[in-house]
């Protein structure tokens, strides 16, 4: 204790003083009840205090998660600045979209031996590693978005490009030619712009103002590569 440590030193030099000399001057003549309030860091979600989610039925859990996924898809289709997509992240949407995109982007038929195995794995790897790289870049630049939130946003914003892929496949059923190509180009460019707008609406806010461009350009590259894969796709 500080008082004990100081007083032996004092003893040698100054006139001897009893231990804890100054303490009585502080006038503790009666017990001090120690009470007060401790505030817990604010929880903005009711889930952990709400015992109903502890014991809720499985069906409720499933419906709750499905609704959350559906809501996020809606948010991507109509991008608004809102925190919901960020706060309540999940990776189901990115998984579904990635699998759908990879399935549509493969050449050859699905059930044969010469199916588009390499292209399938390639799309998968590009999407997920691209998203991870962008997230790392964003975090290294000092953004205050968490790892999974960023993955969630990037994955969900692939939705417009998946729609573009669907349209392109339909258009490719018609005869090939320059008009065909122009239509596909137009569709892909529009959806690409939509993806960029949707994702930057969420991601740019997490960066300081002078770093926004630095954080956004990898997103641009990421969606550009995916759009390129979509545009140059031709079935056998």
């Amino acid at each position, binding site marked *: 204790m500080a008082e004990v440590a100081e007083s032996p030193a004092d003893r040698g030099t100054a006139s001897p003083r009893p231990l804890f000399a100054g303490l009585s001057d502080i006038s503790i003549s009666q017990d001090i009840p120690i009470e*007060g309030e401790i505030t817990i860091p604010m*929880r903005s979600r009711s889930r952990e205090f709400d015992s109903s989610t502890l014991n809720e039925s499985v069906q409720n859990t499933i419906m709750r998660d499905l609704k959350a996924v559906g809501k996020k898809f809606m948010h991507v289709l109509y991008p608004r600045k809102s925190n919901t997509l960020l706060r309540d992240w999940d990776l189901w949407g990115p998984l579904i979209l990635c699998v759908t995109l990879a399935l549509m982007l493969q050449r050859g038929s699905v*059930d044969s031996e010469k199916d588009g195995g390499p292209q399938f794995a390639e799309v998968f790897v590009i999407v997920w590693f691209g998203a991870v790289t962008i997230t790392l870049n964003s975090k290294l630049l000092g953004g205050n978005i968490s790892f999974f939130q960023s993955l969630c946003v990037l994955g969900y914003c692939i939705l417009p490009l998946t729609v573009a892929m669907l349209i392109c496949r339909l258009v490719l059923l018609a005869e090939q030619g320059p008009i065909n190509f122009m239509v596909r180009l137009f569709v892909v460019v529009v959806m690409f712009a939509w993806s960029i707008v949707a994702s930057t609406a969420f991601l740019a806010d997490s960066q300081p103002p002078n770093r926004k461009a630095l954080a956004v350009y990898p997103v641009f590259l990421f969606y550009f590569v995916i759009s390129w894969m979509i545009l140059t796709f031709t079935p056998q």
Partner: protein
Amino acid sequence: MRGPCSRRVGKAAHPGGDSRNPPTEALVDDTEDVSLDFGNEEELAFRKAKIRQVVFGVKLGESTGFFEGEKTISLLSYWWFRDCEVSRVSSVLLPVLAWRAFHTETPAVQGSDGGSKGTFWHPLATFFHLFFRVSAIVTYMCCDWFSKSFVGCFVTVLLLLSFDFWSVKNVTGRLMVGLRWWNQIDEDGKSHWIFEARKVSPNHIAATEAEARIFWLGLIICPMIWIVFFFSTLFSLKLKWMALVIAGISLQAANLYGYILCKMGGESDISKVTANFLSQTVFQTVSC
């Protein structure tokens, strides 16, 4: 959005005490905010079958009905919040009295899928806990027999792994062993990982023990099998399956890690947990 949650911790007298105010024990308002020091547990005799989870902190010096002179020792776990400041404060205040029997009222536990209240046996959850994991492994191993398509097998196994991850994290952990973990992001954008464990009454400890065993066995064995697959893929150079195997390992290991953190309770130091576990085992062997 909830406002800040505040708890009144209670009064503690001046440590010296005096004639007017004898020192009172430190009281805790809400047992749900309490977590404990594990310090004294090594000295206590535990019956192996009765040991389930972490000891409860209780109010001292009051007849709360918490103490009953039963010979068998049953331990309770409790709801606590890992990053709750109050629990850290109160864990210092309460000693462990684990060799008195504790008996509390338990909240009725809802059975799975519309089972009646008070059922502690969840056959459907147990089935699904194992079904998705085992079928993912079986599909991965046997997909060459059913279909020559890489894509079909890949997608099937991936979907099975995802369903398994979701069901173990959200459903079977909650129902079978009463543990839960999730991630939560507060207003500042900071993410918190939260781990919870549910208190169980002595009544249904025996019933849930089998389930708990199945749960942990399933949780531990399957990632090991996927690690074996990883090495076999690596050395046989079938690298197109690598993405799938890595996805499998990461999903299953994430669940395992999350539940281990839930189980460890407030102990973030794994060496302490291991030491506790070993000393308990040694003590039981010696005393039995």
